[in-house]
């Protein structure tokens, strides 16, 4: 299973790296959400957004900090989950020791 998972992960990395190689150093790689916003203003040049975000990250550094925080929180919890599951499933497989009151899981 490890081999298969590593192959799958390698395919994910390849899918992310291939566009960078195909387009070379001069592609913009701008976000599709932003492109849709530009398309709206092309279709309807008179449209004025009627609401603005309550708070905008003051710089792109702060924005990437918050995106990294979002990913780190998620990855941290996922790592905790799988670490815990793996330890518990190893305890389950071990012959139970003669300690009274020991009940795995």
């Amino acid at each position, binding site marked *: 299973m490890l081999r298969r998972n590593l192959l*799958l992960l390698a395919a994910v990395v390849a*899918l992310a790296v291939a*566009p960078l190689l195909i387009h070379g150093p001069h592609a913009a790689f701008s976000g599709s959400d932003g492109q849709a916003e530009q398309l709206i203003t092309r279709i309807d040049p008179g449209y004025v957004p009627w609401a603005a975000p309550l708070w905008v990250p003051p710089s792109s550094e702060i924005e990437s900090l918050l995106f990294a925080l979002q*990913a780190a929180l998620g990855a941290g*919890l996922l790592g905790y*989950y799988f670490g815990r599951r793996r330890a518990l499933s190893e305890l389950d497989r071990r012959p139970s020791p003669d300690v009274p009151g020991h009940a795995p899981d």
Partner: protein
Amino acid sequence: MHIMEGFLPATHCVGWALASAPFVAAGAVRIRRVVRQHPEVKLLLGASGAYVFVLSALKLPSVTGSCSHPTGTGLAASLFGPTVTTVLSAIVLLFQALLLAHGGLTTLGANIFSMGIVGPFVAWGLYRGLSAAGASLAVAIFFAAALGDLSTYVVTSFQLALAFPDPAGGVAGAAGKFLGVFAVTQVPLAISEGLLTVVVMNLLGKYSAGELSALSVLSRRSA
């Protein structure tokens, strides 16, 4: 798929919010029931939400020369059902609207509808259907996660086309243009999400067999 703050007419914002609200409510009720009946799956529910957090934060380059992000909703939808995933998506979208100025409060209903409702229902339906048709777990979860991801972006395209019909081509013409921005870019990302979710499912199958069987009992009862 994040429609920016103020970028939908007010009537559309209200309409999408009203359409999404019952699914959020149903999901909240279902989460309470799942956690009460099967307390052992609480941490797996958290981990499924964490997966949405991670994947929707990753902006990846695509073959079109632009960037977009996966949704991560296929895993939770396949394990816990679509409405539970609606609640998880709503939490992520609220976080991004308030702290990242990504999406918005006025467009929250529309964004929940694409990422938290249509995507998870497509994923859940494919996971169930393919499993019932005898597909392997890996094949079922791959197509569920990949097409759930892609369908979210198709919905966003139509939401924007309804709000901003093309002067020449109407709603259909605008849909074509928005699909050109979102859907093509999303194809390789959807494949990546499918592959990653197969990896997570492989790990769950190895280490979390007990929780998975508790959940399939649960979904058989309420399906």
